[in-house]
């Protein structure tokens, strides 16, 4: 090849292309290469510094959850037909891939009770931001009214989007006192006006409480004409009213609980479903069903005129990363669970979560943050330093949950522990958590302040 381009060496290419003044002029200061065996040993050492959900009894949540991932999912995901190809640029050749997307979209549509779904998004919080962008495209209005019950990362992502587009973000607080823990309905209705582009809330909210989604949607439509957006936890859709039945216009969320492990907090996928009138403003790929010249059923990518390769800067999204493999895991998981399975799972989570909350709230120095119904996660207020309590629990091999203040940095979150329950946490596990937490809180309360 060097001969073909008339150059004597690779070095000569660099010398001819890169001005001498900017050339380094020496070898790079890298350590010696290692053998494969040595690399493996080194990486194993590094990995051993991590503690995974398999190494401790974990009650961590706050957006991603330690659900059981059946072997069936790995078996299908690791098929080279799914695992190895990049995003197909002649999509109609990949009928299998398109069919998976179509089945996935159908499943999401059925779960959310909304007629149209895309083939997945990057993850949860950016799907919420994409919904806000859809609202902006739809109505060109300036204000985003958002519930303080949204995940802090979602709030941050919305603020980033709003900043870029000169939109105003109005945060609506949660109620306090005995009926506390959900989006304040009066503040919510009061904040929404004719210039509100979207009204956004989470279901369940960040502190685990079930919101009155139908009331929030109705109040929003009374106060203005915003696009009503709900960020929902997909696992709860087996027992909570689907967003489509609650007046929600766009339902989005983090798909990780469906068939994806925690990994390092990703990769995962987000889902995005909406009413038909918003179809042309939706981001992401959309698989469509059609017939070929011989009348046989086939699949295509449809409504591509929303996308970047046609609309460039006017596209409905600026994100290119495809999470199709993670979405595949999601649809396989839903097929594995089935219609009954997702309901049974929801009921199981509901009863275990309530059991856990009652057991823990009965401990000295531990109380419920709110009395709202919960499905799979709840917040507690500890009469002790949460980080110190967690440290004592971790030393016992139990991760009691998320230190909310450490995650959010908000003063009102001091002392709050967020505890998540999945089907992998048995009643005995919950009893163990109660035992360990009780001891940890008691020790910290006795400790003399410095």
């Amino acid at each position, binding site marked *: 090849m060097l001969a073909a381009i008339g150059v004597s060496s690779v070095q000569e290419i660099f010398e001819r292309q890169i001005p001498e003044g900017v050339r380094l002029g020496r070898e790079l200061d890298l350590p010696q290469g290692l053998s494969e065996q040595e690399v493996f040993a080194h990486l194993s050492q590094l990995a051993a510094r991590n503690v995974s959900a398999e190494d401790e009894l974990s009650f961590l949540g706050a957006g991603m959850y330690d659900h059981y991932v059946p072997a069936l999912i790995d078996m299908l995901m690791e098929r080279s037909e799914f695992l190895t190809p990049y995003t197909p640029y002649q999509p109609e050749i990949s009928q299998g891939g398109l069919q998976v997307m179509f089945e996935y979209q159908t499943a999401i549509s059925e779960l959310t009770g909304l007629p149209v779904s895309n083939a997945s998004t990057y993850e949860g919080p950016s799907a919420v931001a994409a919904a806000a962008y859809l609202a902006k495209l739809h109505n060109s209005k300036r204000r985003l009214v958002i519930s303080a019950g949204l995940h802090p990362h979602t709030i941050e992502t919305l603020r980033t989007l709003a900043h870029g587009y000169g939109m105003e973000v109005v945060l609506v607080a949660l109620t306090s006192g005995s009926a506390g823990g959900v989006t304040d309905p009066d503040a919510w209705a009061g904040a929404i006006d004719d210039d509100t582009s979207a009204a956004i809330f989470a279901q369940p909210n960040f502190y685990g409480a079930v919101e009155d989604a139908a009331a929030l949607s109705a109040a929003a439509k009374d106060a203005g004409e915003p696009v009503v957006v709900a960020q929902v936890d997909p696992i709860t859709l087996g027992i909570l009213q689907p967003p489509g039945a609650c007046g929600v216009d766009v339902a989005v969320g983090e798909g990780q609980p469906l068939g994806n492990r925690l990994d390092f907090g990703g990769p995962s996928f987000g889902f995005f479903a909406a009413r038909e009138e918003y179809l*042309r403003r939706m981001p992401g790929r959309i698989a469509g069903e059609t017939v070929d010249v011989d009348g046989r059923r086939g699949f295509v990518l449809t409504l*591509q*005129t929303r996308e970047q390769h*046609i*609309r460039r800067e*006017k596209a409905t999204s600026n994100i290119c990363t495809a999470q199709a493999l993670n979405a595949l895991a999601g649809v396989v998981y839903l097929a594995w669970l089935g219609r009954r399975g997702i309901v049974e799972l929801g009921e199981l989570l509901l009863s275990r979560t309530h059991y856990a909350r009652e057991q823990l709230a009965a401990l000295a120095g531990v109380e419920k943050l709110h009395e709202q119904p919960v499905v799979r996660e709840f917040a507690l207020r500890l009469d002790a330093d949460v980080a110190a309590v967690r440290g004592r629990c971790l030393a016992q091999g139990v991760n009691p949950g998320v230190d909310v203040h450490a995650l959010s940095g908000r003063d009102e979150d001091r002392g709050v522990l967020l505890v998540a329950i999945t089907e992998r946490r048995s009643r005995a596990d919950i009893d163990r958590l109660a035992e360990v937490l009780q001891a940890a809180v008691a020790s910290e309360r006795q400790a003399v302040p410095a």
Partner: protein
Amino acid sequence: MAEASYPEDLLYHPEHDWARIDAADPAVATLGITWYAQDSLGEVVFFDLPAVGASVSKDASYAEVESVKAVSDVIAPLSGEIVEVNEALADDPQKINEDPYGEGWLVKVRIADPAEREQLMDARAYAATLGG
């Protein structure tokens, strides 16, 4: 419409848009895209109707036409205020292909500056721009 046609009674903009002004009501112009534009686009699948009351500026885009694989800006040949939009296109955007000068009309505008008409081409001049 299978055959290229450029009616004599219309005024043309180089970006493949036409304006029709009826002697009966010269304050209002009907706008649309030419045979050449619809032929280049292919089958039109969507036309996002602009709002009545919106203003359009000569040489600027006021709407978009979508075919299966492309999106094209629609350029206003004249400035003015939209007084009527072709609602039928919401359900049947293919009229733009089938009858670009008749049932495929896009909007009607109240003309802001009649003098702008001088800057547009007649059918022959426009067809000549396509020839080369």
